[in-house]
């Protein structure tokens, strides 16, 4: 995780001030070699990939448990909003095909069902629920996957995402992106709480 020191800002600020004072000698900016022009490109891409993975996880859960759709769809839509705010290009690409620029991005495109988290409660079973043919058979071992467990798994993914956004916020230079990442962390913190509450309610049925 690259950390940007306050020092770097002072250096940057100094360069800008100098440029402003002596426009004639202002150094021409380096030719915009595409990735280097956005110092936050990596974190932007990683965050976009993570949002895509979350959207895919919601899609998987809704496919497996259509009765959760009315609850889950609004949350999934909020991740679409996150994605659009963080990386508009990825957001438009998500609808069509593979952005395929980063490996986490391409991982997100697959039918990602099992969260990276250790949990072990969340592998969708294709054996018990073969009925919906579209449910991706991501797991090989088939522990029964209940709606409550699906909600818990999503809650865990949201918590992990929230932590990632907070960490990313420490690493980006652009203030506007830092603000968005902070708000996305807050949103995902909310999601984790509601999903946990829903999971407990499901489990109590």
């Amino acid at each position, binding site marked *: 995780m690259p950390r940007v020191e306050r020092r770097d800002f002072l250096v940057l600020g100094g360069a800008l001030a100098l440029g402003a004072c002596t426009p004639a000698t202002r150094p021409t900016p380096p030719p915009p070699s595409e990735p280097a022009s956005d110092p936050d490109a990596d974190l932007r891409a990683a965050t976009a990939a993570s949002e895509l993975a979350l959207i895919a996880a919601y899609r998987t859960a809704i496919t497996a448990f259509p009765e959760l759709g009315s609850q889950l769809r609004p949350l999934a839509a909020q991740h679409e909003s996150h994605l659009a705010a963080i990386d508009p290009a990825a957001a438009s690409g998500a609808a069509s095909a593979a952005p395929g620029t980063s490996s986490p991005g391409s991982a997100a495109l697959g039918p990602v069902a099992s969260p990276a988290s250790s949990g072990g409660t969340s592998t969708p079973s294709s054996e018990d629920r073969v009925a919906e043919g579209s449910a991706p058979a991501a797991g090989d071992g088939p522990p029964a996957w209940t709606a409550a467990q699906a909600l818990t798994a999503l809650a865990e993914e949201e918590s992990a995402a929230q932590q990632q956004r907070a960490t990313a916020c*420490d690493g980006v230079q652009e203030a506007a992106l830092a*603000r968005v990442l902070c*708000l996305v962390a807050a949103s995902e913190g909310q999601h984790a709480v509601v999903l946990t509450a829903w999971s407990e309610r499901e489990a109590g049925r």
Partner: protein
Amino acid sequence: MRAAASELTGLQAALAGEHAAVWAAGRAAGELRGNARTRALRQLDEHRQARDALRRSIVALGADPVQAAPAYVEPFRVEGAAGGRRLLAHVNEALAATYADLAAASAPAARRPAVTASTAAAVRALGWGAAPSAFPGAD
């Protein structure tokens, strides 16, 4: 230098938000009963602690911390438990966005406390009945 100035602005805004939250928690507690009232009073303490920490940060930057307003205008009619909850949801959503502004105004290495406070405010808002939001307090 300029970064410090915008960070100071963000800190003052967050302090003003915590002043408002202290008022709102007290106001709402008067409308609530039982566990909800206990929770509101606990949050009142948390907002006071946050307020005091922000004051210290502002003083450390050599500035005068903003004062609480002598009176606050209720954003809507606060009546009964539902009104108290709604007030706390409203104030905490606003606080989530205010802390996001502070995070943006802070140097990267100094952002984390504001990010944590923003998420905490958003989760408190949820607990008082706010709906989950893509950008809490800012959409």
